[in-house]
């Protein structure tokens, strides 16, 4: 187990390092000169331009810029935004609660609904209930989160006019109200695939030999499912949930826009438009960091669930 953890941690650090280089390069592939954005199209002297370059370290080599960026990250400093002339870290911190809330709440909603849904459709295979739920799942798979969001906004405004669910918030209650609907929209797209995978893997476990043995021991259907099949069937579910995290994080950016929430999404998109290197590379790095961290934690979870993985990598 120790070796497994060390291996995974080493992988994790290497991946983060490579990704940071890729992000750094990608951001600079944009042909627009950031200085023109910073000055906002005003007439400027060569001297002002040189001053601006010096202020934002744009006069240094790419290698030096990269080192400054990475050093800053370790000190919790993502640099200064070109457009806002503000510290990127504080910009991110102000907007982080919305994005983190969306990711967490939608994951919880998705898991709480899709695992039981998968189990029920597996147990009620080939019944009208299964068919009905499968059709709903198919529709959900086909609906991207921003479309679901727009439909939800329509429905909410038609059926409960006056309820406010977009814009800023001042207390926790309002915060939850703001993120609930977009989280549901995000969760829908995850529920479809996750419940499908739960169903398939649950059916496989129900047909397995050890389940037949459990039946021959006198265990009821309920005991067989809960005490034996559930844990086994969750292994592929964890995998699929991990890969969907990436889609989910991208989804938050879109959904924040539709619900006009002050999350990372809106400043990220603004940042891309205006060539704001520190904002774009900072936020993308943060999102990727969250994604890779979740994947790593899921890898650890496999080992906790499955003794064979623990054993394969030495005690």
């Amino acid at each position, binding site marked *: 187990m120790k070796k497994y953890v060390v291996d995974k941690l080493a992988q994790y650090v290497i991946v983060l390092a490579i990704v940071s280089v890729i992000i750094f390069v990608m951001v600079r592939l944009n042909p627009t000169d950031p200085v023109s954005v910073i000055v906002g199209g005003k007439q400027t002297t060569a001297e002002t331009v040189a001053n601006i370059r010096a202020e934002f370290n744009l006069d240094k080599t790419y290698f030096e810029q990269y080192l400054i960026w990475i050093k800053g990250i370790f000190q919790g400093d993502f640099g200064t935004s070109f457009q806002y002339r503000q510290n990127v870290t504080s910009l991110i911190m102000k907007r982080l609660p919305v994005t983190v809330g969306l990711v967490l709440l939608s994951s919880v909603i998705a898991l709480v609904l899709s695992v039981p849904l998968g189990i029920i459709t597996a147990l009620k295979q080939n019944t009208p209930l299964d068919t009905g739920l499968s059709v709903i799942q198919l529709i959900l798979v086909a609906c991207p989160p921003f479309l679901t969001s727009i439909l939800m906004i329509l429905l909410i405004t038609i059926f409960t006019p006056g309820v406010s669910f977009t814009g800023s918030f001042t207390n926790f209650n309002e915060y939850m109200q703001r993120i609930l609907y977009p989280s549901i929209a995000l969760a829908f797209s995850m529920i479809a695939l996750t419940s499908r995978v739960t169903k398939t893997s649950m059916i496989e476990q129900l047909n397995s*030999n050890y389940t037949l*043995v459990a039946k*021959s*021991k006198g265990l*009821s259907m309920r005991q067989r499912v809960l*005490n034996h099949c559930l844990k086994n069937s969750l292994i592929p579910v964890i995998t699929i949930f991990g890969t969907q995290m990436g889609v989910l994080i991208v989804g938050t950016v879109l959904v924040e826009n539709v619900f006009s929430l002050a999350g990372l999404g809106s400043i990220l998109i603004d940042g891309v438009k205006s060539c704001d290197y520190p904002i774009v590379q900072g936020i993308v790095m943060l999102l990727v960091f969250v994604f890779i961290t979740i994947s790593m934690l899921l890898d650890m979870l496999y080992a906790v669930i499955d*003794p064979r993985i623990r054993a394969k990598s030495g005690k």
Partner: protein
Amino acid sequence: MSELINIKNLKVNLMSPRGIVHAVRDINLEIAQGQIHGLVGESGCGKSMTAKSIMRLHDEKKMLYGGEIIYEGNTDILTMKEKELEQIRGKDISMIFQDPMTTLNPLLRIGKQLDEMILQHEKVSKAEAKERSLKLLEKVGIFPAEQRYKQYPFELSGGMLQRVSIAMAIACNPKLLIADESTTALDVTVQAQILRLIKELQEQNGMSVLVITHNFGVIAEICDVVSVMYAEVIVEHGPVGEIFHNPKHPYTMDLIQSIPKSGERGGKLVTIPGTPPDLRRKIVGCAYAERCKYATDACRESAPQLESCGENHEFACKHKFA
């Protein structure tokens, strides 16, 4: 001697996409108390189907039973409710399966799976269940029990796992133990050990055992009586010694011929030429006629009925071999 299980005209029909499969056509089988009863026949002849029917283990959404399985002379297992079946499974009738590598839950410790059987059927504390599980492990020859108790299935060999399965199956002192090809997946020496273990346990607690195999050698080794099955029906049954030395049905003779000889390692396996009939077709006449060297027109016209030839010995063949 009274019967523990009396199977009367058992039929099992499966609804498959390619039509109805008569997986069991018409089985009559009596399992006496305290005996080791063998059920032998080639793969696919319906042995497992019959065994699973005794415990009603099939997924019943896609199948139909016919006939009766009378348990202890008074209750028909085929009409029992699921709740009643759950009380019998594991407690009164338990089963050991073929592939020991897949019969235990890979994610649960061996001890936990043993305890589970005991806790399911008896009012004991967890500590008492553990105590009993450890004794059971020692009884089936697994040492050191305390250490094995904590291990996961993938840490044990096939032979060990089959011993664990046996320990689990006898945990609640069942009246009937069904062993379906329980030694087939193991190598020859381990096979013999496991058979000896089953025999010992049977002698100790006097349960009945139904040994299912395609290998007549296994039958000869531990069984008291044997039923020979071909194409979903019993074609001959009687005491093992009698059948072995004085087989009446050509299929039984051929099966005995094809016992793998020990000591002849690597020697070619004698198999019966031809294949069993397709179960989706209706079988007219004797099912074995296609492969039988004694078959005549009479055999192909109508099916032979079981008839008696000596004490407890019955067979279904139109020819009367001396």
